[in-house]
């Protein structure tokens, strides 16, 4: 009985915690099967209560093999050999909770935490910024180089979870995880970042536009690691903004938005990018509505018109956290806010 109660509490927490409706539906489906006493068929996921044999075996995650390479080459050799049986372990702040729930059951974990060459923040030759995938989120947040070359990233970091999680979670881990409610994928997209990925087969660069392919899915092949994220330099008179609405500080956003606006010398809009998070399976870039800004002197009225129009390009999901209508309302409000802040910042630009 106690097992069942604990199991139900687990499931309840799971339902509360998972930001995505499809995931929750999947959990409900599996929960029903479990309560009926049937074993579900998926090999990948088992919702057997982790406490079922607590006496002999008080472990939350299922067993797995573990390697902690100290060089990138060694790490890549494991992925070449084991393919998708092997899973990279970065900060573990998303992967280990999923393993504790037995939602993820990797056979082999390749721990990247002992590869110092993957953690760095560097300015690039042409005024951009290059961040190693294993750089801790907290390090990115505190970095003067990031503040100088990619201020949008600095100001967005505090929206991610809590300090204790950012102390451990990595910049690359968040991007590779590609949670549609997470902040960094949207920011990488709005900044037009390049993703450098590597396997034993070689190295390639994937533009942010092509990196996020679906819900928790990226363009990474099973044997590829995300190595480095490069953010290009932006022209003068560029302003940035990020904002989101969440139920509590540190929670995943119900809806979030980020904008980058560049003005020309006369003060008219040269470029305007607007990206939303938590409104679909991956970050969504607005293209039609923002085209109204190009070449224009941006007024509050014009921003209102754009904000009204963004919903024509969005198809947000409804779930227990927020209805479709509420998400549409938030999208409009956030579009107005981030565009206003970004435009003002671009106007105040001083070299």
């Amino acid at each position: 009985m106690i097992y069942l109660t604990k199991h139900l509490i687990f499931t309840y927490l799971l339902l509360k915690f998972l930001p995505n409706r499809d995931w929750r539906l999947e959990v409900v489906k599996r929960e029903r099967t479990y309560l009926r006493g049937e074993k579900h068929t998926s090999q990948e996921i088992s919702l057997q209560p982790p406490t079922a044999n607590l006496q002999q075996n008080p472990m939350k995650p299922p067993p797995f093999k573990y390697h902690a390479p100290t060089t990138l080459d060694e790490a890549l050799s494991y992925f070449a050999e084991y393919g998708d049986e092997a899973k990279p372990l970065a900060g573990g702040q998303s992967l280990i909770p999923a393993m504790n729930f037995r939602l993820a059951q990797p056979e082999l974990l390749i721990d990247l935490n002992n590869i110092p060459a993957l953690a760095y923040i560097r300015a690039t030759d042409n005024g951009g910024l290059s961040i190693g995938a294993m750089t801790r989120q907290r390090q990115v947040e505190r970095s003067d180089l990031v503040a100088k070359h990619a201020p949008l990233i600095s100001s967005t970091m505090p929206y991610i979870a809590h300090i204790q999680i950012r102390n451990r979670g990595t910049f690359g881990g968040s991007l590779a995880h590609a949670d549609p409610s997470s902040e960094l994928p949207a920011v990488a997209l709005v900044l037009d970042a390049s993703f450098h990925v590597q396997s034993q087969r070689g190295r390639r660069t994937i533009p942010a536009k092509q990196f996020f392919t679906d819900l928790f899915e990226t363009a990474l092949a099973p044997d590829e690691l995300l190595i480095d994220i490069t953010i290009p330099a932006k022209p003068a008179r560029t302003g940035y903004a990020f904002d989101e609405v969440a139920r509590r500080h540190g929670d995943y956003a119900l809806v979030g938005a980020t904008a980058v606006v560049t003005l020309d010398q006369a003060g008219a809009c040269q470029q305007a990018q607007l990206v939303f998070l938590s409104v679909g399976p991956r970050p969504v870039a607005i293209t039609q509505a923002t085209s109204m800004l190009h070449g224009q002197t941006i007024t509050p009225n014009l921003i209102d018109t754009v904000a009204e129009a963004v919903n024509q390009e969005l198809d947000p999901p409804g779930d227990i956290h927020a209805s479709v209508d509420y998400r549409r309302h938030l999208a409009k409000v956030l579009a107005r806010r981030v565009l206003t802040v970004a435009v003002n910042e671009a106007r105040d630009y001083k070299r």
Partner: protein
Amino acid sequence: MTEKYPITITINGTEYQREVEPRLLLSDFIRHEVGLTGTHVGCEHGVCGTCTILFDGEAVRSCIILAIQANGHELKTVEGLTPNPTLENLHPLQASFREAHGLQCGFCTSGFLMTLEPFLAENPNPTEMEIREILSGNICRCTGYQHIVEAVKLAAEKMR
């Protein structure tokens, strides 16, 4: 049964050597293998903050780190705040929680203390907003947080 690996972890200045399965969580290592039960576990998926410890000086959740990942690292748990505690020699944070009623059942307290120790070391003069922000990663079901905020202000005063 998967293979076990020898690991050495320093907790509160003492070295512990054990053989562990890779899947053993650091929180379970601290509680079950070493017997330091001041570190509590609430949710075991990173949400509640009760399992917070210092890992090489930084506050982290011990329930979403594997014990094997702490091999060769230095940890500090709530037991490390005051080695032989009496009412007189409590760490200023502990004393302030006591004096300002920053706890009721106390289940969450060790997580709060371990979150706050590095925070106050770095921010000796925090504003109320900063205090509330750092507290946002820890859940308390009893106090309503108001007295915890007061306790942090008191501790900051004592430690200056």
